[in-house]
């Protein structure tokens, strides 16, 4: 189990390193200077490949020492937890997209309406929080801290 994870991690880190090296190919150089903007990213990419090798070696070592783990590890399943994880990430993306369009109040209310049930709250609690919290946060950030929160579709009603 650990070997498989270490192989995935090693492959992902190597892929990142290779992508960095490829991306640095197009970086410009100045003739008078032997080192350019590509030097540091390439050193980092080299180090990433070394660390990926190290992680895979650790995985191999665990395979050798891991007789205790041999008792058939449970296969990964798509659980309710995984759904909640994806849902929270989607809420963040949704908030980033909707904030300029709908404005802070509506976007925040929508986030709360979805987030409260995801974290185990009732729909009633979600509605209550969606109705109250955006106004409280608006007061703290907009009125007290002078943060320019977007009004979006509510611009005609801005106060």
């Amino acid at each position, binding site marked *: 189990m650990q070997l498989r*994870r270490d192989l995935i*991690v090693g492959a*992902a*880190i190597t892929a990142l390193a290779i992508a*960095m090296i490829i*991306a*640095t190919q197009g*970086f410009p*150089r*100045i003739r008078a*200077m*032997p*080192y*350019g*903007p590509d*030097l*540091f*990213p390439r050193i*980092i*990419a080299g*180090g*990433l490949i*070394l*660390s*990926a*090798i*190290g*992680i895979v*070696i*650790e995985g191999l*070592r665990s395979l050798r020492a891991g007789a205790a783990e041999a008792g058939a590890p449970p296969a990964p399943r798509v659980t*309710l*937890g*995984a759904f*909640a*994880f994806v849902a*929270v*990430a989607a809420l*963040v*993306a949704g*908030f*980033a997209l909707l*904030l*300029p369009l709908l404005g*802070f109040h509506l976007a*925040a209310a929508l*986030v709360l309406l979805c*987030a409260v049930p*995801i*974290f*185990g*709250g009732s729909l009633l609690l979600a509605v209550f*929080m969606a109705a109250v*919290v955006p106004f409280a*946060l608006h007061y703290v*950030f907009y009125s007290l*801290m*002078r*943060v320019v*929160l977007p009004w979006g579709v509510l611009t005609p009603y801005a106060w």
Partner: protein
Amino acid sequence: MDMFAILATVLSPKILGTIFLCTLYGSFVGAMPGLTATMAVALLVPFTWFMDPVQAAAAIVATTTTAIFAGDISGAILKIPGTPASAAYVEDSYRLSQSGKSRSTLFAALFASVCGGVIGVLILALATPLLANLSRSFSSDEVFWLATLGLSCAVLVGGPSVPRNFASLLIGLAIATIGIDVAVGHPRFTFGNLELYDGVSFIPAMIGMFALSELLRNAALGHQTKLVKLTVEPLGEALATATRRFGQLWKNVLRSASGGTVIGALPGAGADVAAWIAYAVSRRFSRNPEAYGKGHLEGIVDGGAANNAAVAGAWTPALVFGIPGDSVTAIAIGVLMMKGLTPGPDIFNSDATLVYTIFGAFLMANILMLFAGGLVVTLATQVLRVPRAILMPLILLLAMIGGFAITGSTLAIWIILALGLLASAMLWAKIPLAPAILGIVLGRIVEDNFMVSMMKARGDLTQFFARDTAAVLGALTLIIWALLLYRALRSFLDATTPHK
């Protein structure tokens, strides 16, 4: 330096009020399982944007100190350490709570934390000016080696696996390369986005790595912790027992606080490492080593003093060299830089009063923690009943608005999401986050000074050792690299040698 002015600032209602509010906030967040001290600070940062530098620093230190202590509360009552710094002695505190001694245990831990914190601040105030004097003549060579030494330390002590610590650090450094480069001003890895030319904004990065990743983890775990009914001692009796037991263990506090300060000063080793080491040392020197892990107060007092002392210790390299000792001081450096203050030896010349005012605020935070911590210990079971269905959505919204408030752009929210997912992937891969944070903070410093030195030396690497101090720092760094290589080779040989 005007001592009266410093005292007047520290004792002003604005600073005292900020410290007290933040000790309450830190106590609450620290006590909640799954919400770490770093997360508390990351969420606080948008508010510090609207404070002056001393108030901002005071808010950060007050929140951290109390959150580190308050982690003991859920550890004792639920057996879930509120922050990783309380994990070392959670078995002891939980067993003591189960035997009806939760309050006296937590009060003793509070006294140890306060004393540990105060000792840490005193060492910090004495050591930093001396170190700053030493480092005044540093050129780009020394700064490069110092930052590299700090990063190497983070790889050495950041976690049990050297390749993973190394990978974490390099991921942080890779993130720091995003933006305009120092050599020719070429935009790197910006994907044509003009807002990324200045690099990845630090605060949304912190919020993503520490707040969103915690929220995602909490969402994935998806259960509400059940509180078992607990017998607690009467307040007066608990306080008397705690004071008596604490009085018997003052030598432990002195030992662990000084050790904890030194460990905290090592980049990458924070309060959690300090607590583990102090607990191990405590057991080694105890008359009852067999009682550890079965409900023994000695280890709790040692660990509690060490982790709070480490919080102060972490500020030493941060203020003197601009190299954070842990994730929280990494955030603090970011905040001070946003306010136009660059931590480093010069800060003791240009802003000495400010630095000593921060020390004063640190001291006050530790003293006021006695009240805020005491309050939360007394109300512990009520505090732990706050439903996560209310708390987590609030934190999610605060995290996103916080990032937006700093930059005024939705790019901050995308950065929060990207780095939150990256941090979750790293946690899944068992890659620690602290070295990556140091990489993000120090990446620019390392690269800028490396490039300047390379240009000066026309590519001759031996010139990096030409100055005396640079040679010593370089040699120290190379020793750490040799140690890292030795550990890696030993792992490799273990993996390839056939079992007998």
